[in-house]
């Protein structure tokens, strides 16, 4: 599981042009400095990294089954999707 967490942090940090150590699990994408377009790109990178399909519609991000409120929530949601795949 830490493998998934580290990989996601790496993806998000790269998108935000920050060092992974600067990210905290309770930070929202906005706080990290990721806008809607950056979020779409991050989700694509996550899908590619874990070979999963993330249910995310940029029109209603809060309504998606996929919780993107914080970095920690994103990690939890990806872990769930990876577990479902296995």
């Amino acid at each position, binding site marked *: 599981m830490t493998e998934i967490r580290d990989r996601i942090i790496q993806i998000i940090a790269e998108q935000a042009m920050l060092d992974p150590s600067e990210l905290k699990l309770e930070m929202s994408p906005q706080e990290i400095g990721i806008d*809607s377009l950056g979020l*779409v790109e991050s989700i694509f990178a996550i899908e590619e990294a874990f070979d999963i399909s993330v249910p*995310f519609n940029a*029109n209603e991000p809060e309504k998606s089954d996929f919780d993107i409120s914080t970095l920690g929530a994103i990690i939890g949601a990806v872990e769930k999707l990876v577990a479902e795949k296995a």
Partner: protein
Amino acid sequence: MNAKRNKGERPPKTPRKPGKVKGKVKSATKMARTMLGRVIMGRHANGMRRVAITGMGTVNALGRDVPSTLEAMREGRCGIGPLDFRDVDRLAIRIGGQVRDWEAETYFNRQQIVLYDKFTQFTLLAAREAVAQSGLVFEGELGLRSGVVLGTAAGGMNTWDENYRTVYEEGKNRVHPFVVPKLMNNAACSHLSMEYGLLGPSFTVATACASSNHAMGLAFNMVRSGAATVMLTGGSEAMLCFGGVKAWEGLRVMSKDACRPFSATRNGMVQGEGAGVFVFEDWEHAVARGADILAEVVGFSMSADAQDIVMPSAIGAERTITGAMLDAHMRPDEVGYINAHGTGTAANDKTECAAVAHAFGHHADRLMISSTKSMHGHLIGGTGAVELLACIMALRDGVIAPTIGYEEPDPECALDVVPNEAREARVEAVLSNAFAFGGLNAVIALRKA
């Protein structure tokens, strides 16, 4: 009437009477009214020509001609349904405003089909209807003084898709010799010029979702300035193929179930395909030959947000809406209907409503604004052309096309969006909005003929 147009032919400018100007500074509205008063016959006092629409044609998910399309709009019928093409099962988005059961052989011969991508086929069929309605024959001088400006975002996307499949997926090393002339963005424009012998200024513009509004705006200005007597204009798009939809899927702004512009329950855009083609004609030329004038094109404005590659700007949209009214010498309270860009995305609809509210002030609560994309889908580079049909229907028939799929009010879209059912109303002036990805805006203004 269509003889030489020398500068000397234009009526001399009447000197402004000082007594008519109240105060030192004339407001834009006052100036507009003064100018409007100076329309004499087919010309404005400044020598600019008036521009008549004398023909219209279309192919889209609602119908393969104008009467069937307008009937569908009046009935609030939805042309969006399950997509039907190769590999659709590999897509997450499987709905669209597709032109169903399209068989090119019905309209074109074998030699034509090898050269015509679907976007060209749609254009030519729409043009046949428009030109036939106008009654024009482009012979001699008129052919020299007539041209084509069309909009498309992706041109021959189906041709790209099919041939990439051939070389990448099937591993073949040979493609058909006409791939390039078939897929190029100007193919439809060029074939239209050849079909009718249009020898004047002709080109294609690509500004994503605003392409055909930009095209029609340019055509309008060419006729208005006297650079051309007749322009065939509009736009076309045929992106509903595996590669086309797959690309859009990536952006995650597409709806999986329906296009519900302005509704609180909206969840994205739905793509359409098809074409709209119009005949824009010098007013004097149209009157002289006794043509049926469908509407008058009176203003156009375009601008750039210079801000974001996908997110729209309310300020940019407002500037363009206001610009079109100024260009048309139109007061905001004259506008009875706006055909909205209304994509059904979270971002566009609230931004567009804010722009309209700012541009019109109190009058925003009295005008009607609808998005016909809810019925025919978003035709991207061809969308403004199909949507202009709803504008002409409003002016000519007094029928306002509805925004269908409307379920729940959104406080951020608190305008009269003509929900679900068409409405009878007398309107004298209308606008058609288009706000493209990349922040490129284009708004057209029409008046009742």
